[in-house]
């Protein structure tokens, strides 16, 4: 008996509770379900496990780089500073919450397929990294409130599966306007920003011409590389706060507080901070490499299973699928989003922050680029250039205020100097977090009500709005047939 118990304990403690092995095993199951060859199953599972370990290694680099930034911002402003970067916060959470996250992700995917199968919400959310990020956020919130792992996984799976079909449905009329009616939905958790971008674009954009009729300076193209944009902006952020801190308290005390060599002079102090900023970029790049390695195995398995369970469902895809429809609007939306973020930051630091106890949310370039760019495309579709600008701006305001409030429900992880960036993480996290805080059984009931309300709203919206063919601003600009010929001629 002892042997059996020892084996069981080994399996639970040393294999199934270790997220890296768990992810590998789940990948293996997915690949076996797709009847892949033995070699591919082993190789794929091993790659997923290695990818997870790469991600954890990247998290360590990010932590090392973020620690001095926290001190710099606190010393310079007296407030907590946060740079929202999904990749960083998700990687940080894995060592503590990884196993729960992995179970929630798989179970949540199955719940989403079930909902897609039995309701009119026939969307399959295939943006693997956002499923992973959302699974992480929900797990952290539920475990922080004190639910057991089992409740967190089951409840988390329902919450995750629900949002995975609800958001593509609610975004779909605007997505149709953008794509000219292609068979593709938006599967990205920045969707609230896109819907509001589309609505506000329409409100201001009467008579404004499309962004795609203008010539755009080629010099800004380098901003399209998110890693470069992140590194550049982080260098600026580190240097600004380092100089303010040192100017206020003098170089000597600052060097001491950061634990640097007492012989540090101004030149080496600045270069120390430049190196930390670049290391932050390195950490994010490592994490991305890890996530890419994991998803490269898991997402095709998800897609294969989805095709069998819900044939003919609309694929809900990552936001850059909207980029080719209006590439200039992406840049305009990105820049407008950063402006919106900076103005909101000024509001928080000068006035609202102290009143509401909010942290300073600094512009994280990755969320601003992808969600600001997409909000710009949506704004352009409904309101031309003015629409793209206002759409991006609204998104920027949203992804600065929402993360500030989200920090309150993230527990220890709320003090990590980085957090979730995109809009849906913000609003959904706040709603779920508030609901879960009601206490034990009450919290589960409240979360159930939230899920039921969201599904009811989305099903009503799908029937009455999406299936009724409503598209913002009337007819779609580019009919489907025309879009197809255009696609084929521009090789």
């Amino acid at each position: 008996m002892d042997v059996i118990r020892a084996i069981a304990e080994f399996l639970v403690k040393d294999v199934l509770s270790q997220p890296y092995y768990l992810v590998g095993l789940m990948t293996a199951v997915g690949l076996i379900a797709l009847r892949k060859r033995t070699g591919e199953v082993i190789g794929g599972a091993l790659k997923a496990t290695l990818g997870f370990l790469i991600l954890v290694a990247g998290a360590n680099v990010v932590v090392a780089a973020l620690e001095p930034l926290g001190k710099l911002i606190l010393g310079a402003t007296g407030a907590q500073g946060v740079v929202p970067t999904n990749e960083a916060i998700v990687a940080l959470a894995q060592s503590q919450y990884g196993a729960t996250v992995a179970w929630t992700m798989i179970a949540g995917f199955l719940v989403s397929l079930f909902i897609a199968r039995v309701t009119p919400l026939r969307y399959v959310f295939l943006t693997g990294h956002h499923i992973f990020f959302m699974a992480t956020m929900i797990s952290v919130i539920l475990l922080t409130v004190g639910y057991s792992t089992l409740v967190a996984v089951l409840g988390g799976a329902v919450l995750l599966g629900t949002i995975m079909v609800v958001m593509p449905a609610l975004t779909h009329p605007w997505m149709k306007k953008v794509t000219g009616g292609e068979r593709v939905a938006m599967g990205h958790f920045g969707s609230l920003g896109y819907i509001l971008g589309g609505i506000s674009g329409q409100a201001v954009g009467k008579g404004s011409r499309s962004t795609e009729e203008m010539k755009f300076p080629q010099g800004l193209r380098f901003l399209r590389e998110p890693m470069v944009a992140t590194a550049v902006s982080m260098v600026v952020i580190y240097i600004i706060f380092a100089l303010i801190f040192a100017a206020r308290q003098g170089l000597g005390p600052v060097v001491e507080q950061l634990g640097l060599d007492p012989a540090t002079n101004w030149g080496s102090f600045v270069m120390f901070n430049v190196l930390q900023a670049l290391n932050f970029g390195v950490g994010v790049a490592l994490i991305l490499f890890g996530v890419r390695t994991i998803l490269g195995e898991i997402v095709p398995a998800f897609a294969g299973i989805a095709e069998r369970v819900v044939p003919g469902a609309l694929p809900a895809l990552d936001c850059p699928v909207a980029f080719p429809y209006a590439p200039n609007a992406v840049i305009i939306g990105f820049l407008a989003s950063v402006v919106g973020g900076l103005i909101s930051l000024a509001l928080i630091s000068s006035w609202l922050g102290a009143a509401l106890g909010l942290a300073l949310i600094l512009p994280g370039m990755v969320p601003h680029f992808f969600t600001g760019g997409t909000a710009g495309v949506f704004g352009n579709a409904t309101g031309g250039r003015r629409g793209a600008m206002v759409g991006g701006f609204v998104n920027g305001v949203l992804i600065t205020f929402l993360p500030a409030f989200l920090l309150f429900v993230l527990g220890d992880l709320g003090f990590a100097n980085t957090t979730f960036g995109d809009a849906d993480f913000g609003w959904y996290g706040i709603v779920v977090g508030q609901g879960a805080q009601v206490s034990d059984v009450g919290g589960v009931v409240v979360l159930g009500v939230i899920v039921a309300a969201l599904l009811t709203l989305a099903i009503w919206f799908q029937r009455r709005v999406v299936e009724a063919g409503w598209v913002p601003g009337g007819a779609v600009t580019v009919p489907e047939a025309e879009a197809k010929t255009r696609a084929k001629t521009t090789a």
Partner: protein
Amino acid sequence: MVERVKILAVCGMGLGSGLLLRMQAEKALKQLGVEADLEVADIGSARAQAQTADIVLTSAELAQQLGDVMAQIITITNFVDLDEMVQKLGSALGREA
């Protein structure tokens, strides 16, 4: 028998749409009856990885940013249109479905 073709799918972060391109390319290659190795890359590391690839799949904007590489670049406008993928990959590989 030709040697296996190496195809690199490139997007901004190498997470979402690049993976989608890879999955679409896998379907298209099945139709074309071609065996290939497929990888996904982000735009930052794509130039280096393109050195060892035969074909790069990406959007028109990112193709411009990628500049000149040894591999043949195929730009995909509609990421969900399998016909486009089959047609463009087919003509690059000299095959028809």
